[in-house]
């Protein structure tokens, strides 16, 4: 039963990893940008949630209503003021600039909040669980996170393929110059894509902060989980990132079940195995 439990918990954890990955996948799909600071932005959102929660005295899950728009605005500004200048044929500038951002965010958080691990408390929902036959108990909070991940990815999918924004994203992704000729301002389109990605980052960050403790140096680890979920699922496929997140979560939990020291290692090894046998991921949509 321990093993069944490990797999179920892993699937639910995969939802959180899919949230880490969805933003990465979106901005890569639209502008071929890989944001090294993605994990640090998730941690930044968690710290913002902490500040909002403690100053207003509200439930951290409600703080999303404040943190998400803020992160969206931050994303739009960041993209228009900094990241748009780095886009081009050369991959070095976006990489190095987002790497620099990552260091700035990490150390900024360190100055403001110190290196102490923090955690947000969501109240009674944290310990609530639903009993299943066979003596299994499934937490309400992990289920809520998984359901949110499914909804978020469904909404992103809808935006990308059914809405006017999505049309602009896909057009700019296919051919920037012709999209410009058709009257789209690509700087603005990229800004919107980054804003949308950081709204997802805000949700992911709050959930991270409720689920586990976090500190300013936690970002790179989250980036790697998100990246692995993206690659396992296949580049450019949003539902694929959910599958990737689930595979990663399940492998980590099975690894932890064998030996607590193997939790992260098992996830990385699953990623490398998939990279070796299916280098383009399980359900690729676009080429890297």
């Amino acid at each position: 039963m321990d093993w069944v439990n490990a797999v179920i918990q892993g699937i639910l954890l995969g939802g959180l990893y899919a949230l880490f990955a969805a933003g990465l996948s979106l901005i890569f799909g639209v502008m071929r940008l890989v944001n090294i600071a993605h994990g640090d932005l998730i941690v930044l959102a968690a710290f913002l949630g902490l500040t909002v929660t403690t100053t207003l005295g509200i439930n951290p899950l409600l703080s999303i209503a404040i943190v998400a728009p803020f992160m969206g605005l931050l994303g739009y500004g960041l993209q228009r003021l900094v990241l748009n200048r780095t886009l081009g044929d050369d991959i070095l500038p976006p990489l190095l600039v987002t790497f620099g951002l990552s260091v700035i965010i990490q150390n900024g958080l360190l100055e403001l909040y110190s290196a102490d691990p923090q955690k947000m408390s969501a109240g009674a929902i944290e310990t609530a669980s639903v009993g299943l036959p066979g003596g299994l108990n499934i937490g309400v909070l992990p289920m809520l996170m998984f359901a949110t991940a499914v909804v978020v990815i469904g909404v992103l999918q809808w935006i990308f393929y059914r809405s006017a924004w999505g049309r602009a994203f896909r057009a700019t992704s296919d051919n920037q110059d012709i999209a410009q000729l058709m009257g789209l301002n690509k700087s603005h389109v990229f800004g919107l894509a980054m804003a949308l990605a950081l709204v997802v980052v805000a949700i992911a960050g709050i959930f991270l902060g409720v689920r586990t403790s976090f500190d300013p140096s936690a970002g790179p680890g989250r980036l790697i989980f998100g990246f692995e979920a993206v690659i396992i699922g296949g580049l450019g496929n949003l539902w694929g990132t959910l599958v990737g997140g689930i595979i990663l979560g399940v492998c980590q939990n099975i690894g932890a079940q064998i030996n607590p020291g193997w939790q992260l290692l098992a996830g990385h090894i699953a990623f490398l195995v998939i990279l070796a046998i299916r280098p383009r991921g399980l359900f690729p949509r676009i080429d890297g």
Partner: protein
Amino acid sequence: MSATANYTVVRFSTPSRIAAVAAIVILIVLACAPLWAGRADMRLLSELFLYMALASLWNLLAGYAGLVSVGQQAFVGFGGYCLFGLTIFFGLSPLAAVPIAGLAGALVSVPVAVLIFRLRGAYFAIGTWVIAEVFRLTAAQVSSLGGGSGTSLPVAIVKSIADSRAMREATTYWMALGIVLLVLVLVCVLLRSRRGIALTAIRDNELASQSLGIDIWRAKFFVYVITGGLTAAVGALIFLQKLRISPDAAFSVNDWTAFVIFIVVIGGIGTIEGPIIGTIIFFLLRETLADLGALYLMILGLVAIVIMLRAPKGIWGFVRQKTGFDLFALSRRVIATHPDRRGNNTDNKENAHEPQAT
């Protein structure tokens, strides 16, 4: 052929001749440091040499082969752990363990390259990071080397380097100086060779160089393995200086990759001079601003971003653009060979065809 009869191709220019002489003088002065420098100075200089070696290697990887890795800490840590493992378990002398660590690093980089070369561009970068994480988590499982909390180099092994403390410190200092010299010479030789021309072509335009028949995968693979091996040797030396190793210190992305990237970007990526100048600036900044703690790292990150956006070729790129100087005789210049103008090549800098990186 008659058109080429009046021209000759030269590599050395006046600045590069002066630089070569100056380099020899500086080298002699530095080699004598145990005679004139205090212990703290020698430690600082050793650290500077090791960073310079790491930066030159990363520059070869990212600036010439286009392999932007953020996971070179994998090899630094691997080399460090090799040093500890070889000396503690096999009783090897630390001096012998350093080159063996380098060989082991080159060997282990082969399967790593085969795997992560499947990823392109930025995804390659994060893939290298995953590899470094795998190395770190694996090292933390080795309980005989202290597991997650690490271990110290036993006193007996430290004493086997040399009998007196002064001699030990001089030996590790000379090794640090030796490895930066080895790395710089090797990078120069490599870039002047056929492979180097191929690499420079790849740096400037990957598609065009492929259409000229360069096997890009092999050229990149070769560079990756060489830098993997040398980075592991540098890593072994770093932890021979520190005398203590732990997974978090050995595979630290900040210490062995972030700083190194900032050094190369600030100095000038895709040039040999860049990492050298960058390292010196980095140490000057660190010695003056280190008291600021986290703020210092934020400043460093900001400087790197501004340089990347405003002057992507860094300080040396800017100097070279203004003066046409090359301190290392790598580029070929076409010189007209009229008898009266022979050797007078200062006004021919517009003909230098190498420095036009994209």
